[in-house]
């Protein structure tokens, strides 16, 4: 763990992506040279900010408050001091390490091995009581050096925050074991656990990466039609209704074990027992991709809000089950008893899917929806509009166009799947980067959110939303954003980019006020996207594409109001943290 912590700290201190990658790669290669697969897998997981494998159903049960208690015991400082230190450092893990560094002999401690960390993860997952978990953690941290303390605490807390964006760890694994990056990336969509991936890479076996029932693969994604630059061939596509629910990948192993994974690859099996039960009744192994949605007694999909009471709940109550029953609307099959089907064309997968679902009882919580093709002789836009209207009338959000001859490409967002959500306006997934208290009734709660999209590895603000959340949701957001505030600027809080919102808006305009050069008009929050990680938020290219589409359609003109892209003010990320230090 010493070597890994040093590598991660070097990665944190480096500015360029390449240097970060090289630092992590160096540590992984050194660990691989002298240690076994367990150590290497653990190292790769810790580097990704976790200690259990991706898709592992078990929970560590190590929350912030438990870690906090461990820090108090380990350092001898009380709650007030530890919180003040964590606030000042912006993070508990770093404050913990700095406080441990005060202890005589802490630098000379024996340290924790990666094998210790792997055992700790197993033991934590198996230990039911808080007191027991606390004892395990205290024993581990008593041996850890300050630097190990920092990175072990980060991994247990579920985030590295070393400025390494998505893909840096993949780059590091590729570099450490001399695997071409493209091959490693492809393997990573099938083997989503970084530990397993590193072990495959070391063995030179990334070509053997394949879907395994019970382990999630990356979800295939759809591109908004606004972002598609050139015309689609309407005859090549089939149309499915776009379901406004929770994307889910459902695995049923040959032995009958069922696992349901959400977009973030977390296991959510317990939250949807009726779906799990239906899958258990399937006679053989399979992996389905689909969307879980609440349904009315007549079987019609209910709005996303109806699903809310089922989300964030590990085990729903009988009342939840009765009031908000759900079904999995399956739209793809990734594997069946014959093995993985990813490389088969959509038409073949679809035929197998329909056959599979036919074998289930009609009352079961797994269903398929019919698909349609566009009439070949009508103009594309007109036909699409008609199909869109029909989908809306059936209660769905829009359409997804899928190429009938294409394989399932995990993790890919391309022209193979294209989504149509709104006729003109659309929604974007954005990351909250700052928040302010509201006024009047909303004084004292954080109700105004500045949000951003990605430009390269940076988040650039594109607007500010005030509406769309209920009072309860605002209270919950206030607590979350309170905990992630790293700087206060008068009333403005800069927060760590962790919360993803889906915002609707009336259009995009040029802006000199926002760092991105664009601003969304009248943005309102559609919902909090806890199923998405910040890295999955939209990119500036999507915003630019919407703007360009508006220009093309005559909805907006190119001219900038108050300054164009070239005269953009410093984005929020460059605001000074600790005062200007000037007299």
């Amino acid at each position, binding site marked *: 763990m010493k070597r890994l912590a040093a590598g991660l700290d070097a990665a944190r*201190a480096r500015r360029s992506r390449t240097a970060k990658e090289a630092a992590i790669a160096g540590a992984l290669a050194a660990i691989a040279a002298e240690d076994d697969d367990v150590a290497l897998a653990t190292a790769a997981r810790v580097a990704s900010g976790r200690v259990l494998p991706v898709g592992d159903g078990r929970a560590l049960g190590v929350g912030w408050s438990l870690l906090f208690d461990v820090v108090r015991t380990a350092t001898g400082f009380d709650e007030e001091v530890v919180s003040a*230190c964590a606030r000042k*450092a912006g993070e508990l893990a770093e404050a913990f390490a*700095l*406080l441990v560094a005060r202890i005589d002999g802490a630098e000379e401690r024996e340290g924790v091995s990666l094998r210790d960390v792997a055992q700790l993860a197993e033991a934590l997952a198996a230990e039911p009581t808080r007191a027991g978990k606390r004892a395990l953690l205290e024993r581990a941290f008593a041996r850890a050096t300050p630097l190990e303390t920092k990175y072990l605490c980060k991994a247990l807390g579920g985030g590295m925050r070393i400025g390494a964006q998505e893909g840096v760890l993949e780059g590091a694994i590729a570099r450490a074991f001399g695997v071409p990056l493209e091959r490693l990336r492809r393997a990573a969509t099938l083997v989503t656990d970084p530990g397993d991936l590193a072990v495959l890479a070391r063995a030179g076996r990334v070509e053997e990466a394949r879907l395994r029932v019970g382990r999630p693969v990356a979800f295939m994604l759809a591109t908004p039609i606004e972002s598609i630059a050139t015309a689609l061939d309407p005859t090549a596509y089939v149309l499915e209704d776009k379901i406004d629910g929770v994307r889910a990948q459902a695995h049923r192993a040959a032995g009958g074990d069922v696992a349901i994974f959400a977009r973030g690859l977390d296991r959510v099996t317990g939250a949807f027992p009726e779906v799990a039960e239906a899958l258990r009744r399937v006679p053989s192994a399979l992996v389905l991709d689909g969307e879980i949605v609440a349904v009315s007694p007549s079987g019609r999909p209910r709005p996303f809000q109806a699903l809310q009471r089922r989300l964030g709940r590990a085990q729903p109550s009988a009342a939840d089950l009765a009031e908000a029953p759900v079904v999995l609307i399956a739209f793809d099959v990734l594997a069946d008893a014959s093995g993985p089907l990813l490389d088969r064309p959509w038409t073949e997968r679809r035929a197998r899917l329909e056959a599979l679902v036919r074998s289930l009882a009609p009352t079961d919580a797994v269903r398929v929806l019919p698909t349609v093709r566009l009439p070949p002789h009508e103009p594309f836009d007109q036909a699409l509009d008609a199909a869109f209207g029909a989908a809306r009338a059936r209660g769905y959000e829009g359409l997804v166009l899928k190429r009938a001859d294409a394989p399932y490409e995990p993790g890919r967002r391309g022209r193979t799947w294209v989504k149509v959500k709104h006729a003109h306006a659309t929604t974007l997934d954005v990351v909250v980067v700052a928040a302010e208290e509201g006024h009047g009734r909303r004084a004292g709660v954080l109700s105004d959110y500045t949000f951003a999209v990605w430009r390269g590895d940076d988040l650039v603000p594109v607007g500010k939303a005030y509406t769309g959340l209920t009072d309860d949701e605002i209270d919950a957001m206030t607590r979350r954003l309170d905990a992630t505030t790293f700087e206060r600027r008068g009333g403005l809080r800069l927060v760590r980019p962790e919360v993803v919102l889906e915002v609707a808006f009336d259009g995009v305009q040029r802006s000199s006020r926002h760092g991105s050069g664009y601003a969304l008009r009248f943005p309102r929050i559609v919902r909090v996207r806890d199923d998405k990680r910040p890295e999955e938020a939209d990119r500036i290219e999507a915003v630019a594409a919407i703007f360009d589409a508006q220009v093309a359609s005559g909805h907006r003109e190119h001219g900038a109001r108050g300054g164009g892209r070239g005269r953009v003010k410093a984005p929020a990320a460059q605001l*000074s*943290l600790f*005062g*200007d230090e000037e*007299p």
Partner: protein
Amino acid sequence: MGARRRRAWRGEARCGTLEDVADGGALGLRMQDGELYLDGLGLWLDPGCARPLAFVSHAHAAQALCGAHAIASTETLALGRSLGAVSEAARALAWDGALELPIARELGGGTARLSLAPAGHLLGAAQLVVDHPRGRLVYAGDWSPEPDGTHAAGAIVECDELVVTTTFALPIFRFPPPSRALAAAADWCAVRLGDDTTPVVLAQTPGPAQAIVRELTSRGVPVAATDDVRRACAAYEQLGVALGEVTARGEPAPPGAADAASRRGRPRTAVVAGASARATELRARGRTAVAYASGWAVLDAAVEQKRADAAFAVADHADHDALVALVRASGARRVVATRGDARVFARLLAEHGVDAEALELPPIDDRGAS
């Protein structure tokens, strides 16, 4: 920006802890309009703006030198002038001099004798020592225990009441001796220059920036600096603190430095820039590496925020242990913690058996440009 932030903090201060300091001590120390105020003498301590009568402990609080009557050390006045903010009525108090002020009748009347003691921290930084009929109060201001080549060590003055600044009072702050941190920063610069990379060091000016300039020039490393740093360097030179030659960024290096390397177009000088300079702008020319030299640099987030490649804990403040040591050695029976994590530090002192209270105010360094 500075004004807006100050207003926000005053708001916090007002709902703060006036009641916590029930008696205000022998001279009635309290918070007034979000500033430290010695009621018994009508004296403001490092106020954020002009006040009728103010003690200005060091040049980072120079805004107060505009007030009707400001008291400061000779060096603080001179540095204040170089920053362009001193009224005619500001008076220098000699290091061996004293000033008498009447004490308000409600607080017992009589006369208080005001004198200065070195505070470390910054050239000219002074503690205010107030001897009065019932004992001695010391306002230590921004205090640091060790010299850094541009300023003396902070003195420990025995007293009854001690007012300390708690900017870095949390136990996460532990600073190496300035000599070691400065040497590390200078070594880093030398390595970068050898690697054909221009080293840029971000540091507060006046203060650590000048200590870094001195460390570099004393090793024969040619130094260029931003205008704000050079202005303060000139003021230091006039006050008798030799810093060596500092060119403006972009000017040719001094003749001695025009060696073979420079003829090949390699970087010739290390650059020292004020802490508020943007690393992204400084990187604009050629291969550049940026270091952040500050007490804050012990925190990852601060280094990240400066977009720096390296960090050196060149601190001009006392860390947690040094503050506790100061409090103990002063023998103070009553301690008032202020300007920083005052409440937490007062609580920690109370655990050590020291009668400590907090007056919550923002650090002077956070005031920003006025």
